């Protein structure tokens, strides 16, 4: 859905989705119950809670972090998080490197860990500028990247889904895993923000 120049809301996507869904049901490809179950499953993920748990565990457990960076899908399953057939790649921010995730072709996103994608992630502006002028884009998100840090952009063009492991903020030594998880934002796991500790 997008606002038009006249201030109206263009609902054509919604009508198209409904028409397509009803046709699939009418032709017996899907049932309404299957559609409802899938929508429920996605909403039940409560936003980015699973992603937050993964990041917090990686911050406090070096062996887990190593496994996560080597084979992210297996490491996430260790935490009892059901991710289906998701092929996950976790990329680690360091003092020298920052990572940013985009899908220029459509809107591939690790929904199993982050919940529904924000509208901006699917916008043409984000999808094109994340590869073309990522530093200017990040600055508009309020993240002015140190010019000495390398920026790695990851375009999810095929079967992998990506999650950024953000830097653990200073001043959080000794924090419990659950408290750390609450600091981790969805945006930091896409790479458009860093995690900050409360002042």
């Amino acid at each position, binding site marked *: 859905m997008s606002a038009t120049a006249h201030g109206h809301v263009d609902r054509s996507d919604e009508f198209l989705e409904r028409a397509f869904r009803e046709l699939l049901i009418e032709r017996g490809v899907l049932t309404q119950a299957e559609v409802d179950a899938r929508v429920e499953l996605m909403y039940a993920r409560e936003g980015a809670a699973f992603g937050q748990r993964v990041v917090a565990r990686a911050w406090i457990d070096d062996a887990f972090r190593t496994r996560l960076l080597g084979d992210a899908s297996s490491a996430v399953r260790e935490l009892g998080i059901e991710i289906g057939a998701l*092929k996950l790649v976790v990329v680690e921010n360091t003092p020298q490197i920052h990572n940013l995730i985009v899908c220029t*072709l459509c809107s591939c996103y690790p929904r199993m860990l982050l919940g529904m994608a924000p509208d901006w992630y699917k916008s043409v502006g984000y999808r094109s500028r994340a590869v*073309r002028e990522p*530093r200017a884009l990040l600055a508009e998100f309020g993240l002015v990247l140190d010019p000495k840090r*390398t920026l790695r*952009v*990851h*375009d999810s063009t*095929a079967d992998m889904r990506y999650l950024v492991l953000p830097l653990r903020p200073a001043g959080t030594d000794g924090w419990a895993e659950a408290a750390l998880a609450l600091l981790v934002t969805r945006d930091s796991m896409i790479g458009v923000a860093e995690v900050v500790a409360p002042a």
Partner: protein
Amino acid sequence: MTPRFAPGTHVRVAEGEPSGHVRTPYYIRGRHGIVERVCGAFRNPEELAYGRRDGPPVPLYRVRFVQSDVWPDYGGRPGDTLDVELYEHWLEEVTP
């Protein structure tokens, strides 16, 4: 299908404009990069999109490109990179 390219191999992305469900972005066609990792083998989306599920799985790679090679006027840091997932039939080995 055994992957033809190991991590570190220099590759070039094919040009060309086949129609259909192609997952190779236009901006990366014809560019040179280095294989970062082999992601496994997956059904070819160019076939899958038409319901053809009997083809062999195709090796998929993450290829790392230097931003200034992709965009000659790139304004960021010289070492900035762009990783793209590409299927083997889009790649050919080149001499660095």
